[in-house]
């Protein structure tokens, strides 16, 4: 497998090969080499199957980390390819021509994270969030609980007590905080 790491490093500047399991590794490369690298993996290295694609909001680093998981059935090995893209300008090459279902994942990432894949079919259409007007909901800075609290009413009659505070009120209210 490390030969593959070497080849990917040489061709696409890939780095950080990590064997998670005997049959699963992860690797990182730059977003602008992503499509070429995936095409190479598909056509030259046997990683013909795209299991899924998604993203992680690494808001602390100001990036979205893309996750493409490929599988080579011949080698019995899966490879997760990562690439960071700027959270402020989240645009990346579409791979809809490499895999025929990839546009769906890209549409999802556009809707959920606001990552654009120019040229990907129906990428701007709503996917699962019909009528959604909030920010891309999977971004870490979208607080779904705050949204829910602001949007929906609590069921009336719900109230809870903290045991320690309740016991203080009942048993030793005189104690200073």
């Amino acid at each position, binding site marked *: 497998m490390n030969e593959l790491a070497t080849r990917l490093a040489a061709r696409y500047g890939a780095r950080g090969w990590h064997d998670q399991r005997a049959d699963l590794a992860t690797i990182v490369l730059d977003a602008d080499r992503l499509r070429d690298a995936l095409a190479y993996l598909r056509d030259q290295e046997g990683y013909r199957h795209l299991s899924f694609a998604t993203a992680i909001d690494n808001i602390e680093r100001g990036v979205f980390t893309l996750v493409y998981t490929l599988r080579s059935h011949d080698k019995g090995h899966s490879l997760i390819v990562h690439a960071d893209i700027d959270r402020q300008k989240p645009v990346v090459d579409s791979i809809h021509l490499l895999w025929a279902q990839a546009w769906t994942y890209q549409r999802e990432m556009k809707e959920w994270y606001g990552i654009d894949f120019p040229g990907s079919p129906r990428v701007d259409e709503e996917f699962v969030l019909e009528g959604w007007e909030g920010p891309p909901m999977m971004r870490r800075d979208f607080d779904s609980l705050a949204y829910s609290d602001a949007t929906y009413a609590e*069921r009336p*009659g*719900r*109230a*809870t*007590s*903290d*045991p*320690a*505070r*309740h*016991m*203080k009120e*009942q*048993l*030793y209210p*005189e*104690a*200073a905080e």
Partner: protein
Amino acid sequence: MDIKDFIAPFAVWKRAFEKPFTVKKPIDERPGAPRYRGFHINDAERCVGCGTCEAICMNKAIDLVPVEGREAKEGDSGLRPRVDYGRCCWCALCVDICPSGSLNMSNEYLWIDSDPDVFRYTPGVDKKPWDGAELGYRRAEGYRLLDEQRVPMAELGHREAVKSFLELVQGYSRAQAEKEADRCVSCGLCIASCPAHMDIPGYIKAVREGDLDTGLRLLYETNPFPEACGRICTHLCEGACSIGTGGDPVAIRWLKRYIADQVELSAYAKALPRAEPSVGKKVAVVGAGPGGLSAAYYLALLGYEVKVYEKDGEAGGMLRYGIPEYRLPYPALDKDIGYIESLGVTIKRGVAIGKDLSLSDLRRDYHAVYLSTGLPVAYGLEVPGDKHPRVLDGVAVLAAATRGEELGLGKRVAVIGGGNVAMDAARTALRHGAAVDILYRRREEDMPADADEIREAKAEGARLIEKSIPVEVKDAAGALAGKAALFVWNEAEMVQKEEGKRPVPEAIPGALREELYDSIIAAIGQGPDLSYVTEEDGVPMKRFKPLVDARGMASPGASPKGGAIFAGGDLVNDRKDAISAIADGHRAALSIDRHLSGKGA
């Protein structure tokens, strides 16, 4: 196409002659499987209202609510979980995690009502048809989300232990402490039971997260004796621990010790708050025990000039002179006291109030005085012959041991009493090579000593003679006269004389026993020495106790300028343990500050 493809479908018709799979009225006669996750049931008596069910519930379906007729008490918040079936997803994680095992599920799944708001109830409190259901989801045997077993503490073996005064309990390693801290569910039931109301979940969290500076800061918020309390505290908290309802309680005391042990004294100042700027007022503290020094610590933090008067040669009070070093090594105690002194608290050792100085001197020279002189006077056996030279008092024996004096207890030692002083005296005598009998008037389960102490004393070889009423001490005959004594006791039986009161030991007529001892150590109880308080000091007293108000104040003093007297610790409270004295000292410090600064008077 085959001819079979035209004919085969008609095979359906054979089903017309078969027994149908459907059953009549299935809904009425179809109980859930024995493991079915149906509506909740809760044994409200066993439940302690810790709220762990609420904490694990990912749907926020559980509220903890007050329940009519159920008051908060030690180890029970009085709250009970209420389930909202508009949110419940029937995952039963609440059942799996419940520390006491009181929360379970019935196998009932039918509950029909046209009002959606009724599907919310407090199991075990609001009566339901499925209450007490035999069947339904129970967590599997040996399967729970919490660990019922405490991380074992390394201790000296008993045979090893009696050979020296080395500390028995070795303390937790980091991995052990973090594992033990992981057992806590942060319910906070323990806080109410701690006399000092320490933030126990807070400092356990600090252990868990490896943030010992925060842990130390939380300890010192309410207790400046973490090294001592981490070893010898009566740990009422552990009795209230919700985890203890279904396993070993969290080792709160050892975790406290772990924090204090891990931080070097030189690093304390970095973690702990600095003293406020001086407020220009002086406070005297009488007695450098845990209570007095606790008051001194908090007063010093608040900017007061504090002087502590101690009649003995060393500070620490009963922690030093009453507790043997195998339980509380002196360096650990010195660390606690050293930090308090480092804040500028002056301890005047070897100065007895009432002898070297009078209380009225202190009232004159200080803005306030805190009395924390404890219970130094050992009570006597009060049986004929109890003035025999071989009848010793337990407190004196322990103090002599601390001072490193030759005890000369002899080979055969009797300890009379069932409290911690008795156990300490017995185990000290064991370490001096004596054979020890502990004689107690009632049964073992009535003994006021900590269960651990009793267990260890026995394990180290002390013989416990229960239900033995002291009758007489007789001088030994012949050559041993004056050097040994016969202790005579009457065997007793426990008699329930009054409904609702504890049984009374009653002598069995004629069942007299006697035994020859080289030393007889009386440890039946201790009283205060209040000889230094005069009528002029204006301290109201009743039954050998200063009377204090809720703030710990005994006398407001002659003038608003000062001389107010506060009192606390064993002298005043009924708990008579170190942590209560520490709590009293803390409270007195705050009260003195309020009194002297005129805040909230």
